[in-house]
């Protein structure tokens, strides 16, 4: 009796396995297509080109800076949404996710309306401080942060809501301030959620295209990140575009795999 039950439990149900396998194939087959079409014989000389390294470096730097911006602003925002007693929290939570559903190009246009040279804030930045964000590397970081921050906020907020608030309350009864309790009790307990959100956020920023090209434009060495370089290479030299894509793919998979192993290897 026990053995049959164990077997029943051990067998994977087809209704789950079949869609899972199809889902896996759906996600992986396009990547295989990329690898199959890659011009492996001429790969080294294409990679040696200066523009590839430049675009890759810029991509990694901008995605990392955008992630830092998202961490500094996004973790407190997630805390406010999960723990703060702010009116209309449900609406705020929905608004925070707007960049997720907004087409990135629209996000870029919206950023131009606010931070562009004639934008609501941008015109003052330009007139008072001589700061102009469009067409700069800082603009790339902003555009990426705008698109990627919701991923971080949602992950961290989810972790906060799943965390037991009684530990914080216990810390408070022992005399800890809310800030101390946040740093010493809450943050360590939600660290896996923060790391997962950070990884998602970085990955999203790395692949960002629409908001970047709309807000920051495209100039080699300053705003041409890998996705922009891929898009433009497609116009004239599809093989180079494939090479760039493969490089971006390998670098991101490498970084994500390394991070997963170190930080978010859950119970296996």
């Amino acid at each position, binding site marked *: 009796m026990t053995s049959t039950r164990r077997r029943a439990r051990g067998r994977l149900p087809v209704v789950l396995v079949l869609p899972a396998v199809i889902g896996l194939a759906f996600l992986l087959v396009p990547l295989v297509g990329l690898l199959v079409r890659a011009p492996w014989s001429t790969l080294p000389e294409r990679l040696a080109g200066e523009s590839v390294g430049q675009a890759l470096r810029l991509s990694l730097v901008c995605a990392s800076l955008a992630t830092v911006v998202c961490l500094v602003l996004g973790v407190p925002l997630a805390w406010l949404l999960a723990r703060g007693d702010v009116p209309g929290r449900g609406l705020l939570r929905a608004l925070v996710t707007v960049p997720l559903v907004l087409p990135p190009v629209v996000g870029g246009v919206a950023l131009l309306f606010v931070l*562009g*040279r004639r934008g609501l804030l941008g015109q003052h930045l330009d007139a008072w401080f001589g700061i*102009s964000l469009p067409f700069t590397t800082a603009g790339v970081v902003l555009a990426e942060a705008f698109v990627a921050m919701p991923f971080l906020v949602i992950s961290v907020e989810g972790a906060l809501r799943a965390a037991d608030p009684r530990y914080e309350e216990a810390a408070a009864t022992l005399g800890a301030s809310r800030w101390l309790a946040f740093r010493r009790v809450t943050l360590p307990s939600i660290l896996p959620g923060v790391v997962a959100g950070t990884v998602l956020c970085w990955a999203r920023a790395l692949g960002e295209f629409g908001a970047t090209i709309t807000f920051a434009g*495209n*100039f080699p060495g300053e705003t041409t990140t890998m996705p922009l370089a891929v898009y433009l290479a497609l116009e004239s030299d599809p093989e180079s575009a494939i090479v760039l894509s493969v490089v971006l793919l390998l670098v991101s998979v490498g970084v994500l795999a390394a991070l997963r192993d170190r930080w978010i290897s859950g119970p296996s």
Partner: protein
Amino acid sequence: MRALALVALLVLAGCGERAPDGAVTGRITVFAAASLTGTFTRLGEDFEAANPGVDVVFNFGGSSGLARQIGQGAPADVFASAAPSTMAQVVDAGGTAAAPVTFARNRLEIAVPRGNPAGISGLADFGDADAKIALCAEQVPCGAAAKRAFDAAGITARPDTLEQDVKAVLTKVRLGEVDAALVYRTDVRSAAGEVEGIAFPGADGTVNDYVIAPLAAAPDDAGARAFVEHVRSDRGRAVLAEAGFDAP
């Protein structure tokens, strides 16, 4: 977004046919350069009005991107390219049903935001490091034409951004994010009121030919040829001329 348009076209295309009485019916799918958006939309409406039962569907985009989609088997009946070289890719792959013909010409013009706040007066201002300049990337036809203009004038342009198509360049001018840009004369015309155009000497060297051809894989061959004829008709020429195109 392009991919989505392509999926929509895949679903929608392939239902054109010639009715028994010889009239053209069904759906005609036209892939056309982004700079033809305004004129071809109007010509499509004309064509639909003259041929009841015909539905003309457009996919506007950068010519080279469109050529690539056609090469990958996108179901298009007609291709109108902003550059003969892009059309040549389709011809070389055996993609056309008839020889491409030149139906219009376009030339570059300097575009500045309304009121010309930076006081741009000519091509030489494009070498000014302080001016915000947008150009098309050299990989797309408008960028190649801009390069010819600067080479001929002996000016080293100092752009702040190299956009992926001419409409993106125009948007930057419309929003006032750049002081000057090089776009087609037709683009300046289409944004009249927001954008001012400045002709420059040597623009004759930037003329590019627009070519059109029915496609071999056309699900609707008769419709494709009829639409090409419509573009080349007197009515077609008038619409194109009004938008600022030169006659071939």
